[in-house]
Structure formats: structure tokens, C-alpha cells
């Protein structure tokens, strides 16, 4: 496989999914979920360098994809109707709606870009002439929230930098990570936020292995992952 695309070149998991749908020329209303999920994981593994902050977002989607795939393979038993006993919906429905909505705003974004560039009819306001600007020296204004935002921006950047790694073969294995996760979850009886599980991961590879370990624990029913709202935080908890 030759995926020479950087994960960073996608705006996020939805952008990557749209790319895959387009590349495979499949119907967005009838996504072959197994194929797309596989390719999605291929992208994650092929990415050479990735910002860990972003990786969490990609992994949340990976979890969603796997859950959809599972639901398509094993429809829920009729005995346990999910909410209210309606007929089982297409498990892909919600994802499709999200993709459609995101695609709409992506289109608006490129429309805005062409307006900015003057490729579409548009009005122009006066250009501030530089002459007016530097005549008044001292008066400046600023606000405390602005200062704090600047502070956060700087530190976020600083944190982001060392979090970016070129993948080296580290000796992390799934079994090790499963033990690790169980240990950490025991420290948090009320559960942990999915993203927070990854803050200790030193590399993309380690994060991936951690993710696989989590999936295995979910499969073995040692751990439960819940999400209240679509795209809300995923909470991970020990099952006793």
C-alpha cells in the first residue's frame, strides 16, 4: 500500500473519511463500512508523524467506525430494543449525516476562500491606508481574556511540539498496554475521558497500541466505553 498522505493534511477524521469515500467512488449514503474502516486504519498506521492532540480525534472516529462495523455484522437482538423499541436504524445513518453536514461547510469554506481572493463578484470596502495608522502612538487597548488566550496559545504550541515524533520501533506490545490500562482505570473508579488515556503515550505507535489494547479490553468486556452525545466525550470505565 502506498499512502503517502500525511495525516496532518486532513482537517480531521471527517475530512479523511470524505477523502476515502471520494477515492473509492462510493455512495456516501451506502458506505461500505468494512472497506472504509480498513483504509482508515491504514492511513493511521501509515502516517509517519502526527500530533498527539490530533491523533486522539482520529482515534475517536476509529472507535466509531469499529462500533458501526460491529453493529452491521451483529444486529442487536430484538429482545433488547435500544431506545423505545423502534425498528433498528441503519447504524451508518448518524455518521452519514455528520459527513454530509461537514461536507456542506467544507464547500462553504472554499466559497469563502474564492470570495476573499476576488474570484467571485464581491464588494470592497476601503483599504485602511497605512498613513493613518502610526500617527497616534501610545493608545493601545487589550483585555485580560485576550492576554490569557495568548498565554494558552503559547503553551498549547509548546506542548504540541515535543508531542510530534518520528516513529521509531519501540517495544510496546498490546498485552503490556492492557495491563497498563487496567491499572490506570483502577485508579479512576468513576472512569476516564478517552482522550486523557493517551496523554501518556510518547509516540504515535504507542498511542495506536494503547488504542488496540483498549479495543481488546472492550471486546473482553473488562472495560466499557460510553459516549453520551455523538462526538461528545467518550468515557472509559472498568466493568466489574
Amino acid at each position: 500500500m502506498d499512502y503517502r498522505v500525511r495525516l496532518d493534511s486532513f482537517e480531521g477524521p471527517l475530512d479523511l473519511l470524505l477523502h476515502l469515500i471520494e477515492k473509492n467512488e462510493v455512495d456516501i449514503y451506502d458506505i461500505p463500512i468494512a472497506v472504509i474502516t480498513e483504509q482508515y486504519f491504514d492511513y493511521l498506521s501509515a502516517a509517519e508523524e502526527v500530533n498527539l492532540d490530533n491523533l486522539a480525534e482520529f482515534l475517536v472516529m476509529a472507535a466509531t467506525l469499529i462500533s458501526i462495523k460491529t453493529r452491521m455484522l451483529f444486529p442487536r437482538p430484538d429482545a433488547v430494543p435500544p431506545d423505545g423499541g423502534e425498528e433498528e436504524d441503519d447504524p451508518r445513518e448518524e455518521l452519514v449525516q455528520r459527513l454530509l453536514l461537514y461536507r456542506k461547510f467544507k464547500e462553504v469554506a472554499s466559497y469563502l476562500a474564492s470570495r476573499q481572493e476576488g474570484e467571485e463578484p464581491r464588494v470592497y470596502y476601503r483599504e485602511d491606508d497605512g498613513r493613518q495608522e502610526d500617527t497616534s502612538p501610545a493608545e493601545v487597548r487589550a483585555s485580560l481574556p485576550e492576554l490569557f488566550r495568548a498565554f494558552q496559545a503559547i503553551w498549547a504550541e509548546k506542548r504540541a511540539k515535543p508531542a510530534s515524533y518520528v516513529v521509531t520501533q519501540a517495544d510496546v506490545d498490546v498485552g503490556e498496554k492492557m495491563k497498563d490500562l487496567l491499572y490506570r482505570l483502577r485508579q479512576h473508579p468513576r472512569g476516564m475521558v478517552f482522550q486523557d488515556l493517551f496523554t501518556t503515550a510518547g509516540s504515535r505507535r504507542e498511542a495506536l497500541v494503547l488504542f488496540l489494547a483498549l479495543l481488546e479490553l472492550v471486546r473482553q468486556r473488562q472495560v466499557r466505553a460510553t459516549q453520551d452525545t455523538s462526538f461528545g466525550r467518550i468515557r472509559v470505565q472498568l466493568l466489574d
Partner: protein
Amino acid sequence: MLARDEIKAAIEAMLFASGEPLPLEEIARVVGIPVEDTNGILNELVLEYNKSGHGIQVVEAAAGYSLCTKDTYYQFVKAVRRRPAKKLSQAALETLAIIAYQQPVTRAEIEAIRGVRAERMLNSLLARGLIAEAGRKEVPGRPVLYVTTPEFLKLFGMTGLTDLPREDKEA
């Protein structure tokens, strides 16, 4: 007291010189005549500039009145603009697109649509003056609501949010 003709000229000068849209009330206060009379003069100005033969127009948006070019002549104007605004990143454009259509909108709502965290992007758009905070949503956590600013309209050459394409027109 100025003659009516001169008040009109003064208003034209004010619209030209102000870097931001001017609210009707402020114009009335500065020229020192009642708001209704000011409104009448502004309507005259709007009509006069709407005539062909003029390449500029007086437009009214939520924030007030301003002068801008007519969109018909965009290619000529583009050719003489000296300081093209810096291109925005795809992430910035997508975030702005969502805010423009869904405003007022919370950070969580933006994140739900884009699927990625929005905090840093919102800070940077706030710093550029393209969006502003507009109170809080009355739901648990009282999250901040974001709206676009007149600066946003200016950057994308719109006279109002109605210039945004609508679903039915597009697609």
C-alpha cells in the same frame, strides 16, 4: 446649523472616512439633526449611489451604514488592491463557515461539526477580529456564544450575512 445639502455632504464624508459601519443614531448625533431626518438623507444617498454611473454604494447592515464598491466592478478593484489580505487556512475557513451560518454558536457545536478541537482556532479568529463573543448560551455550563463581526463581512466582501449562499440556491 448647516444647510441640508451640507449635512448630506457631511454624512457622505463620515461614511467614507469611518473604518467601520456607522449606526444611524451615531450619524444623527454627530450632525446634530433628528434621527428621522438623518434616515431620510441616508435613503437619498442610497438611491443616488444606486444609479448606474456610480461604482460605489451606500449599504446598510446590522452594524450600521457604510460605503463600499458595487460587486459588478470587482475585477477592476481587485486589479488595484495593493494589500491583499493574508490567506486564511482551511481550518480557519471551515470554522468561519460554521459560525457564519449557525451563529450564535458554541465551541462544542463547532467541534461536533468539524470533528476536531476548536479552541485554538477560535482564539486566533478572535484575535483577528473576525469573530466576537456574544454572551453565553443558557444551558448547563453556560458556554460562550460566537458570532461573526463586520470585519468578517469586510474580508469576504459582503454587505451582510444575506450574501451567504443559501442551501436552495446552491446544491
